[in-house]
């Protein structure tokens, strides 16, 4: 029999105003197992806690019930108190009489009744509590960062600087991501390449970082501290360790008509190419879809001109297997496809472009060497219309587009408009917007400069239709403030396309058993208090894979994720949550129901010999829970048909006892 102490907290007037705390303490005194009960103003204070410690000693308590705020708030506090008093921390139960009681009731009688009921339920549970101890597992001191954009680069650098080896996996041939394609960055207008490429070089030169480019994660096993990952490094047909990046091959290759993805297919490169001048690793790559040597065995020019013999037409995909203690996802974003947006004539006219295409057009390293010209005829545009929120902030039931705000478009559009007016002052620039959203340091000032200093025409309203007619684009729009229809003859229309998570994120999330929201953004463990962690232990989120964000925010989040990783890798062993599922082997049918519903892949099966009650020996398939992976969600205990699966700390019997106590 337990000796239970009940401690009822006033929480100042938070609880005491709607719950008669003294009555609660009196009412539970006669409950089974209760030997002591008391109420106090602030149970979590130093004085409150020492009151608990003293009571444990004086009344030889074996279990504690704290009637206070939500366990999310102070469960760990009172567990520590219990430990201090010399009893197992898992002999503590919290009855939440604040968030779930005093805060939601106005009537003190009802509030008190409910508080008593909640306290009785907690007492019934503690009567069945058993001491629990956490298991330990070793930590592999190496991190994997998936995605080599600015987010992945920052996370990798921070982790590596702390002294831990990092593998940076990038699916493209070079790291750099979207930021490498940008021209200038808001709100300072410094050039993206100038601030990014030195970081890329840092990554390449860092002794703790290994870049695995042109590669994809193929399989993830294990759990926090002990992930086992298979990475497929795709053949690039060039030996990375030999290629000097001299670029001779990329000039001699006879196949000149390969769309240049880095320039968003606005120009061409050869079948063997280096994505851009500052690429890291600066190594050539052959596009097997265009190379005639790889397609029909004829050519071989690149191999002939390569002075170091780096070309290897026989190169095969390579599988790299490695163990990691932590994984950072930094898979980034893409602008949405504008195929369905015929009202903006994106697929009908070459002069309707996306903002990312605009970045390449104004970039000195872009297809036009930074001259802003119309893709159709190469002439300089004199009237440019920017359309914001293309596919962002759509109605939930709309047939296309995203419900969310893509967050970065207002700022980059202001930047684009400003750059145009700065370089070509004779150009008329219109920006159509729903709202202009500029929360961020120096952001609103930046936008106002566009309007006030640069004379950009900001018009509240949306563009209804863009009609290509001869050399012009007829833009029909409404001005909501003036309440009139506008017709503008534009030379160039720039669409601020919504951004969405990269396609590779969804299959990756499945491999990692990391949860995602309906838009395929990774979900954080807590939207406010744990924003860079996935609910799956050991998985950390960096950059736009978690939600739309700009560069400053991405970098902060990347460093935050790195800090979390460093905190994890600093530990030699990890203490698990002892409230994990356990399977009673004698009752297990081996039916796999539990494994099928386990969101964390914590359950495996083994065939074992069992001595049966009738003294025969039988091979039986039984479930085995890996306590380091189990998060204690309890799905398996519900799915198990025989009741073999149970959750320590939340045993079926304990839950039933709580329900019984409430229904009594």
């Amino acid at each position, binding site marked *: 029999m337990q000796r239970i102490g009940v401690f009822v907290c006033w929480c100042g007037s938070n609880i005491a105003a709607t719950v008669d705390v003294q009555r609660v303490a009196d009412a539970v005194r006669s409950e089974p197992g209760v030997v002591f009960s008391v109420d106090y103003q602030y149970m979590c204070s130093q004085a409150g806690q020492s009151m608990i410690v003293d009571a444990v000693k004086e009344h030889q308590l074996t279990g504690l019930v704290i009637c206070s705020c939500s366990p999310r708030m102070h469960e760990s506090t009172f567990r520590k108190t219990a430990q201090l008093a010399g009893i197992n921390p898992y002999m503590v139960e919290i009855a939440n009489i604040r968030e779930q009681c005093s805060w939601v009731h106005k009537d003190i009688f009802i509030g008190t009744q409910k508080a008593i009921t909640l306290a009785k339920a907690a007492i019934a549970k503690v009567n069945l509590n058993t001491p629990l101890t956490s298991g330990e597992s070793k930590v592999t001191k190496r991190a994997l960062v998936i995605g080599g954009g600015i987010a992945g680069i920052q996370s990798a650098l921070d982790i590596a600087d702390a002294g831990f080896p990092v593998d940076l996996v990038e699916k493209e041939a070079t790291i750099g991501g979207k930021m490498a394609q940008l021209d200038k960055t808001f709100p300072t207008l410094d050039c993206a390449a100038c601030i990014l490429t030195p970081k890329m070089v840092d990554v390449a030169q860092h002794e703790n970082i290994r870049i695995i480019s042109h590669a994809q994660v193929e399989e993830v096993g294990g759990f926090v501290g002990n992930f086992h990952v298979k990475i497929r490094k795709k053949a690039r047909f060039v030996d990375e360790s030999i290629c000097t990046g001299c670029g001779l091959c990329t000039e001699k290759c006879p196949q000149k008509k390969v769309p240049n993805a880095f320039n968003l297919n606005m120009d061409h490169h050869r079948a063997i190419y280096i994505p851009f001048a500052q690429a890291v690793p600066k190594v050539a790559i052959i596009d097997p879809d265009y190379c005639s040597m790889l397609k029909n065995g004829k050519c071989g020019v690149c191999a002939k001109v390569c002075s170091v013999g780096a070309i290897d037409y026989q190169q095969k995909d390579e599988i790299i297997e490695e163990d990691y203690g932590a994984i950072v996802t930094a898979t980034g974003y893409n602008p949405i496809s504008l195929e369905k947006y015929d009202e903006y004539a994106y697929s009908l006219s070459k002069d309707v472009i996306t903002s990312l295409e605009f970045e390449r057009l104004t970039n000195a390293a872009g297809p036009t060497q930074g001259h802003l010209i119309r893709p159709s005829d190469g002439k300089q545009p004199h009237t440019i219309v920017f359309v914001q929120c293309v596919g962002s902030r759509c109605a939930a039931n709309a047939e296309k587009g995203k419900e969310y705000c893509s967050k970065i478009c207002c700022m980059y559009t202001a930047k684009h408009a400003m750059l145009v007016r700065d370089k070509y002052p004779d150009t008329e620039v219109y920006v159509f917007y729903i709202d202009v959203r500029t929360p961020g340091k120096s952001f609103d000032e930046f936008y106002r400069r566009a309007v006030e200093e640069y004379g950009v025409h900001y018009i509240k309203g949306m563009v209804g239709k863009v009609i290509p007619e001869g050399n012009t684009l007829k833009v029909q729009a409404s001005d909501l403030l003036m309440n009139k229809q506008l017709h503008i003859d534009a030379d160039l229309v720039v669409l601020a396309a919504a951004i969405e998570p990269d396609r590779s994120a969804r299959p990756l999330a499945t491999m990692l058993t990391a949860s995602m929201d309906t838009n395929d953004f990774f979900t954080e463990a807590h939207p406010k208090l744990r924003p860079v962690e996935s609910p799956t232990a050991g998985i950390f989120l960096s950059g736009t894979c978690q939600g739309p964000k700009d560069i400053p925010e991405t970098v902060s989040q990347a460093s935050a994720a790195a800090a979390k990783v460093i905190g994890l890798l600093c530990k030699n062993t990890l203490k698990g949550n002892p409230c994990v599922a356990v399977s009673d082997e004698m009752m297990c049918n081996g039916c796999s*129901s539990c494994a099928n519903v386990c969101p964390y892949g914590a359950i495996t099966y083994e065939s074992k010999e069992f001595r049966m009650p009738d003294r025969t020996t039988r091979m039986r398939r039984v479930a085995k829970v890996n306590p380091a992976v189990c998060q204690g969600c309890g799905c398996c205990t519900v799915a198990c048909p*025989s009741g073999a699966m149970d959750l320590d700390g939340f045993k079926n019997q304990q839950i039933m006892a709580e329900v019984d106590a409430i229904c009594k």
Partner: protein
Amino acid sequence: MQTVTREQLLSKAVSLLSSGTVNRVLGWKKGDFAYDVTPSVFETESELQDSFVYNIFCSANFSKYLISETQKEGRVLVFLKPCDSYSFNQLLTEHRFDRERVYAVGIPCDGMMDTASVKALAPDGLTHAVRDGEQLKISTLYDGETSFPFAKVLPDRCKLCKSKKVVVYDEMLGTNGDITDAPRFEEVVRLENMTEEERYTFWQKELSRCIRCNACRDVCPACTCEKCVFDNPASGVENKAIDDPFEEKLFHIIRAFHVAGRCTDCGECSRVCPQSIPLHLLNRKFIYDIDRNYGEYIAGAEEGLRAPLVDYHTDDPETDAVMEGGQKQ
């Protein structure tokens, strides 16, 4: 028309046994009366010749027996009717036996009688019942021989057969059938359309006859737990004397929940019930709900199927779409 005969099954069993393909045969053993047929394990040809029987009373679903039979040495031959094959797949999905230790021979079926149905036709002095073409011939001590149209006197579960297709086998005897579109949920819909009181009265009347013999559980191919919750004192719902008139309902409700999504609708529960309680209706209600909410699903149609109740899709209906009493809330 039954397309396989006892002789066909017997010669198949004998040849598989003598060639060493199988070591044992799971079959039906004849008893004193025609309707008195017992599932049995035959180990020799002479045992088979002596007492192996195949007639219109061979309803027993053998799949569940495989759990214990496959624990023994060698391989076992099992005859699977369409119903049984669904249970067979479901048990394989749940890893309840080793497929390698079974040789499955599929046999077509167009309905099986059970003792209760045939006794309903001739309550007293039943001596013999045999199928002759489309007719069921019954002999009694007092009235001699009477004929009934076979299809009309079949028990409900065969009249409303969901599938005449054997879905898994190593070898098929006779011709395989197809999935039917029998209106098997009509009775469920009738119950759903009742008022709460009417429905309560219906189940009260049916379930209060329950004597807790556990036959339904023991025969059910989905009830294969190593230790049933009703036999486990720690579960809180273990067998005990009924001290509350609601308790027998609780037993059946818990059982229906436990087999939800795993029940293949083989109807064995209702067949073996000595009190003729239409237990299959509870399970069929679950199947109907699953079909309506998550799309048509027949447990055991394929090995390894993920049952909708233990599978999650983002387009699964939310609770506000769940029907109560057949009505959308």
